[in-house]
């Protein structure tokens, strides 16, 4: 039972990660693969907040402290997104992808060298705030994050972000401040990645820079590709598949040892035959559920 609850919490954090990367890659069409960096910034900032800056408050008011530190983590990551976004969003396509990979690695190497957060020894002793209630908080934060992104994409702001993906030049000519909305989408994506990181820090109670390698960014990318880029439901489904698959494979020793191979295979199959992901497959099979019509 504990095992199942642990996995479900990880699943929730992955859902936030996938949904947040989907804002950047899926909705705004920016190719970013440095999401582990924002995840790391959020995790370390939240952990530092609860352990180093306000341990008394965390002991006295665990629920309020949890909300505070998770938001601190999210804001720190959002700020990182702003600082990275302003120079990097002049780049497009592959060049942006390379710059974001670089960012992710810089963060990891910085964390390996900052003594205050344990450097290469890792950052232990993060208190599991709210104890047994923690999984409930994880679910609440996940629900709120998904709700926020969902509502945002149904507003004019969401349409502005989508229009940039569709045709940047036309979007500018129609009065959309492209530079602003690219940065905005990037910051929103980073914010929620950081929020997920804050939850992760208190969930695992120990952080190490090796938790935030490039492979994490690739896993999150895999989630949104499998689920279907540019679809919130797709991101959630992708997170479910990519989180639960290794757990299911764990019961078979051979399959478990080659699980990265299986992931690679899934990625290839999806990209070749179903580039729209599982949501695309769903729309193809049940077209009448979609409101938009085709001539």
């Amino acid at each position: 039972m504990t095992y199942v609850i642990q996995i479900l919490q990880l699943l929730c954090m992955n859902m936030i990660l996938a949904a947040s990367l989907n804002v950047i890659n899926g909705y705004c069409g920016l190719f970013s693969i440095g999401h582990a960096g924002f995840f790391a910034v959020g995790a370390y900032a939240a952990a530092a907040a609860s352990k180093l800056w306000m341990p008394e408050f965390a002991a006295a008011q665990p629920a309020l402290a949890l909300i505070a530190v998770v938001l601190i983590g999210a804001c720190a990551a959002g700020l990182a997104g702003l600082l990275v976004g302003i120079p990097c969003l002049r780049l497009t396509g592959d060049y942006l992808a390379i710059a974001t990979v670089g960012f992710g690695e810089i963060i990891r190497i910085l964390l390996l060298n900052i003594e205050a957060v344990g450097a290469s020894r890792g950052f232990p002793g993060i208190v599991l705030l709210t104890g047994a209630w923690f999984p409930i908080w994880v679910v609440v934060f996940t629900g709120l994050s998904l709700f926020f992104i969902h509502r945002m994409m149904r507003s004019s702001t969401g349409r502005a972000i989508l229009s940039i993906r569709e045709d940047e030049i036309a979007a500018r000519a129609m009065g959309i401040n492209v530079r602003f909305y690219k940065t905005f989408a990037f910051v929103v994506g980073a914010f929620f990645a950081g929020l997920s990181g804050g939850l992760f820090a208190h969930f695992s109670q120990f952080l190490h820079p090796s938790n935030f390698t490039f492979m994490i960014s690739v896993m999150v990318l895999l989630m949104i590709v499998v689920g279907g880029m540019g679809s919130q439901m797709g991101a959630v489904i992708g997170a479910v598949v990519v989180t639960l698959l290794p757990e299911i494979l764990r019961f078979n020793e051979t399959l478990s040892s080659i699980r990265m191979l299986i992931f690679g295979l899934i990625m290839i199959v999806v990209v070749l035959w179903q580039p729209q992901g599982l949501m695309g497959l769903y729309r193809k099979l049940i077209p009448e559920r979609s409101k938009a019509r085709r001539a």
Partner: protein
Amino acid sequence: MSLPLLDVDNLTIRFGGLVAVNKVCLKIEKGELVGLIGPNGAGKTTCFNMLTGVYEPTEGRICLEGRDINGLEPHDICAKGVSRTFQNIRLFKSMTVLENLLVSLHRERGYTLFESILGLARFGRREREMRTKAMDILKVLGLDHRADYVASSLPYGEQRKVEIARALAATPKLLLLDEPAAGMNPSETAQLAAYIQKIRKDFDITVLLIEHDMSLVMKICERIYVLDYGQLIAQGRPEEIKKDPRVIEAYLGGSVGGTHA
């Protein structure tokens, strides 16, 4: 003496050693329907790109209602009242026709992000108003039955119309049409001519259009500017332009007053 809507003076742009547009002056009064013609590579679209802020002119001045708009970002120029269509259609392909128009209305949404996330009353009301406004434009253009269709799924001619509708949704004072008849057959072009005149009347706007199709330009434009190799070689009413020897030379080449007359 009222100011002209658009006053372009001495507009010049150089790309390295190439002078793409050289000392072009345009004056467009409110309510006019003006054509900008010229052979391929004459610099017509480059002119549009400068008017809409995509390129910054090397020299010259662009004034809209007496205010200098030179050097503004494209989205700011759109806000000042200039909107455009593109030579090769640039719709937001996977969005619906209505959503395409709603993007243009973004500037006048009148609610904040937090109001939309909390679903407050003003968000709902403004969204309904924006949809009504977009639907009204689609109705005038006879596209309302296509509102919920994915833009890229429409036939070519309708995609062109949607692009015009999207430009109109930005409530422009000046509408720039870049080769609206490109890829259309003669009967479609004739329809388009009536269409453009209707738009100008119904939306009370000024239109500047680039066109290759002479029948369209001669039929609907009140005044025509002719560009060749980046320079203005003639301007005037359609019948004057038709007879202008420099225009005939630019289009047909060869000696002026040859056997083709």
